[in-house]
Structure formats: structure tokens, C-alpha cells
């Protein structure tokens, strides 16, 4: 009589290792990039950018260090003191390389803080909406729909027109626009997770609602938000650059890359391209890196 509970392990057949089209088919089953790898890459990138200004040859904010006679020099030109301006200078005599390094840091800081705040606020509200339901849900989601119905740039522009310039104001404007995305994503995921058994179990065990929401529900809803947030860092950076370019973003005293590019615009037609081009390339590289990492992160979480 066969014993289905037999403990002796019977050998099973191994897989086939050679078939006519195995190689071709395997190529399509790409090894997926890992989320951890992407997250580490992102962290390294950011650290690098944040530290970079310490290596800058000149502090572009220090007005005493600037020499207006060195203004608008082409890349590679020599300075009055004998050093080299590897990327040229702007109209004020600022070393482009240094300005770019400092500008990168500001761009990244603005992007990161905007995303961080938006994620916190948006996720919390989305979670609340999903968990409480009822009129809270309706109210929050109506607001979300309203905000998302308008193009980000326009809302930010008008907000800054009213508030004036400043790094903090830019962050506020970005947060006001972006939180709605996170709220929607979080709510969608939370609604799905809320029906699962572990939530029911927690409720039966008598945990207070806020505890369930924050410690049980939230951790399981984080992954779509994280992916979105990564890509949004790049979007926030571009947005800040654009707003600064248009003259409503950061003030002249703390130039971000967008402002640098704007300052070089008028000299473009006369051929002094470096004031606008190099900051732009730096910006592009930053954004491209973040987007590529974000794309890989998204691909690794995609079940397909």
C-alpha cells in the first residue's frame, strides 16, 4: 500500500539542459536588476553630489573671491591668479566648475526635500483615506483629483508668483503639487491590502486603528510609492530648474543649475555657449542617472 506520508526522499527528474532553441529563449528571460542594487546606486550618487562642493576650487558665493575681470572666459582659460578655469567663467567671473558643483547640490537638495515631504504628507493622507473611508476618503480624493487635473508647472508657477522667490518657497510649491500623486498611489495599494487577513487579525487582536494603519498597513504599501518617489526626484529637480530658469525659483544668491543656465542665455547668441551648456550637461547627467536607476527599479518590481 502506498504511504503518501513516506519520509524517505525519492529522487525526482532533473530538468533538460539542452534543447534546440534554449539559448535564444534564455536571452529573452533577462536577469532582472535587483531593487537593492538600484537603491544602493542611488544612494552613492546622491552622496557624491552632496559632497562634491568640498572639492570645488572656488566658492562662487564668496563675492570677494570673484574677479570681474575674469568674466566670460572660455573653457580652459587661465585666471589672474594662475589657476585654470576648466569650464570657463560666467559674466561675474565665477568659475563655472565650482558653480556647477554647488548648483548640483542645491538642485539635489531641493529635489530630495520636495520628494521626502510630498511622500510623507501624501502617503499619510492616502493611507488615511483608504483606512477611514467615508467622507474623509471622498474629501481627500476630490482634492487629489482637483490638483492632479492641472499641469504641475502651471500650479507651481502661479504659487511662486504669489509667494515670491526662495529655496524654501520652491520646495513648498513642489510639495503642494506633488503630494497628490503619492496620496493616490498609497490609497490604491492600501485599499487592496486592507482586505487582507493580517489586517483583520490585527483588528481582532484589539490594536488601535492608528497603530494598525502605521505599523501593519503602511509597510506593505511602500513599494509602489518608493519606485514612484525615485523617479519623482528627477522630476522635482527638473521642475526646480525650470522654475529658476523662468525667474520664479531660487534667488540669485543661491544659484541652482537652472539659474546658471538662465544667466547664460543672453550670451548664447554671441557664441559664449559654456555658461549655459555646461550646467545643462551636468543637470542632464544627474537626471539621466536618477531616471535610469528608477527605471531599473521599476522593471525589477514589475511581475512581467
Amino acid at each position: 500500500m502506498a504511504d503518501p506520508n513516506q519520509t524517505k526522499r525519492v529522487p525526482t527528474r532533473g530538468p533538460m539542459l539542452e534543447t534546440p532553441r534554449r539559448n535564444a529563449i534564455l536571452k529573452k528571460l533577462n536577469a532582472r536588476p535587483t531593487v537593492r542594487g538600484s537603491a544602493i546606486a542611488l544612494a552613492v550618487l546622491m552622496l557624491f553630489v552632496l559632497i562634491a562642493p568640498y572639492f570645488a576650487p572656488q566658492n562662487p558665493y564668496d563675492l570677494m573671491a570673484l574677479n570681474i575681470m575674469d568674466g566670460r572666459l572660455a573653457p580652459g582659460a587661465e585666471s589672474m591668479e594662475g589657476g585654470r578655469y576648466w569650464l570657463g567663467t560666467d559674466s561675474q567671473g565665477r568659475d563655472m566648475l565650482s558653480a556647477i558643483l554647488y548648483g548640483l547640490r542645491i538642485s539635489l537638495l531641493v529635489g530630495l526635500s520636495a520628494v521626502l515631504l510630498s511622500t510623507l504628507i501624501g502617503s499619510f493622507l492616502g493611507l488615511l483615506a483608504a483606512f477611514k473611508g467615508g467622507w474623509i476618503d471622498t474629501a481627500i480624493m476630490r482634492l487629489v483629483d482637483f490638483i492632479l487635473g492641472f499641469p504641475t508647472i502651471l500650479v507651481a508657477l502661479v504659487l511662486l508668483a504669489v509667494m515670491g522667490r526662495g529655496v524654501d518657497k520652491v520646495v513648498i510649491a513642489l510639495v503642494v503639487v506633488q503630494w497628490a500623486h503619492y496620496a493616490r498611489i498609497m490609497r490604491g495599494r492600501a485599499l487592496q491590502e486592507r482586505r487582507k487577513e493580517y489586517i483583520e487579525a490585527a483588528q481582532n487582536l484589539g490594536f488601535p486603528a492608528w497603530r494598525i494603519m502605521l505599523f501593519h498597513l503602511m509597510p506593505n504599501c511602500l513599494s509602489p510609492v518608493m519606485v514612484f518617489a525615485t523617479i519623482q526626484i528627477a522630476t522635482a529637480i527638473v521642475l526646480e530648474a525650470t522654475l529658476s530658469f523662468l525667474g520664479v525659483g531660487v534667488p540669485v544668491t543661491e544659484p541652482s543649475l537652472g539659474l546658471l543656465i538662465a544667466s547664460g542665455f543672453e550670451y548664447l547668441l554671441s557664441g559664449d555657449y559654456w555658461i549655459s551648456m555646461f550646467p545643462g550637461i551636468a543637470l542632464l547627467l544627474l537626471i539621466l542617472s536618477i531616471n535610469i536607476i528608477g527605471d531599473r527599479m521599476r522593471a525589477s518590481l514589475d511581475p512581467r
Partner: protein
Amino acid sequence: MALFILRRLLQSLFVLLAVSVVVFFAVYAVGDPIELLVSPEVGQAERQALIARLGLDLPIWQQYGHFLWNALHGDLGNSFVHGMPAVELIVQRIPATFELVVVAITLTCIIGIPLGLVAGLYRDAPLGRGIMATSVLGFSLPNFWQGMVFILLFAVWLGWLPASGRGPTVDVLGVPFSIFTAEGWRHVAMPAVNLAIANIALVLRLTATGVVEARSQDYVKFARAKGVKPGRIVRRHILRNILIPVVTVIGMEFGSLIAYSTITETVFSWPGMGKLLIDSVYQLDRPVVVAYVMLVTLIFVVINLIVDILYAVLDPRVQLLEPAH
């Protein structure tokens, strides 16, 4: 169907009202409204007269009432800088922006959709992968800087195209358009491409993922089992299914493009609504800013309505679901 349209119309009206409230209170109630609305160069006596006439000494609700009443009559105040009604000022500039946006959308469709189709059908081949990789570049480039690169390349270094401005116009149905002149095309080329690139990348990726998803559907397998030719499967089965989300995205992007034209118009000095907005913000010409927001909201609301209706028309499943509420 009629019920659907009616409900959407009501929603749209509500949105317009909400925006009017937000805008009004943002501009007229935040900070010192007198300082905001009365031009700073005006003398003391005139200031008082203006204040009285503008009703700035009235309770805020009455002010809003006046604002709304005027708005419904198409009066959103006069521009400080130009002295003429803000609405008129903006409306004058609409054809230029509209032109730019239409050309950009056309480019999006004729480049984005076919490329996306190819990228989706050849997803595992180098061609597909190459197209998708390039598309990341498309939406990573900061729009304004991209425009400047174009200017540097095509206007300063190669000298093929003009660096700024709109070309000569021709009146069609009483509205001036520049795309009907050859010289006009030289001017519109760079700005339109600049505006379109991020959009093309977006539509491309959307189409590609749509194709990949459609291909794995059962009805495609069933069509193959019927012996239907691959070309027809792509054309009739796959394309029809992905066209629905793609069309709606393009429709929604129309509004977005109007917004992003502010950047392109600034870089290329294109005399459209967007440039007017930036100039007005710079010059603190607040009535124009207010008027712009109201008008653009109106445009968006109308576009969303049209897109919703289009969606219901294109997808035969949607109509049946509506009455089942």
C-alpha cells in the same frame, strides 16, 4: 449617454468655480490686495479713487461677488502694463500658442506612435531596446535647456533656422496663422520639436507597453489559431486596443502642452500665451496672471470633457457600464 455628459458638465462647472475661489483668494486676499492690484506708481488721491472703484474697501465676500459677476461678463480686469482688458490681451495670443501645440501634437502622433509600435513589437531585439533606451533621454532632458541646445546648434553654429520669434502670418478665417507660410515653418520648426520631444517619449513608451500587453492577450492567440495574418493582427487587433489609452493620453497631453508651452515660448521668444504669462509674472501684472489661470482652467475643463466623451465612444464597453450604477 446624455446623462453622462450632463454629469460631466456639472462637474466641470464645479471645478471652474473652485478654481475661481482659489485664485481670487490667493491673489486678492493674500497679502495686501491694495498693493497687489493698484499700480505702485499711482498718486495718493488716485489711489483712493481706484480703491473705491475697485471696491477694495468692501467686505471680501462682496468683492468676490463682483469678481465673479465681472468674470461671467468676460471682464477679468485690466492689465497694469498694457492698460487693456486682460482677457483681450490673452485671447490675442491664443492662435500663436495653439499653432505651436497643434504642430507638436501632430509630431507626437506621427513619430511617437509608430516608433512605439516598433519598440513594442521588437521588444527583445536590439532595435526595440535601442528605441526604449533613447526614449529615457527624451523625458530626461530639461525642456528649456534642450531648446537652448537647438538654438546653439541650428541657429548659432549652423545658421539654418532663426533663433527666435514667429514667422509671418496669414489670416485664415480671420485668425492669423504662421504655418501657412514657408517662412513661418522655419520659425515654428524648433519650438514645436522642442515642445514635442518629451511628449513623443511618453507616447512612445505608452504605445510600446500597450503593444507588449496586447500581444500576450488571449484574443491575439485566438486570432493566430484562426490563421489570421500577422499584419492584420497588429493592425486590427492590437492597434485598436492600444489606441484607446493612447488617444486619451494624447488628449490629456493637449492641456499639458499648453502649460509647457510657457517654457518653449520663453526660450524661443514665441509670442504666445505662455510668454505673456511669464512676462506678466515678472512685471507683477497680476490681473493678467489671474485671467490666464481662469482661461487655461476653462480650456482644460473643456478638453477633459471632450476626452471623456471620446473614450466612451471608442471603447464599446464603457457605455454599457455607465447605467449599471
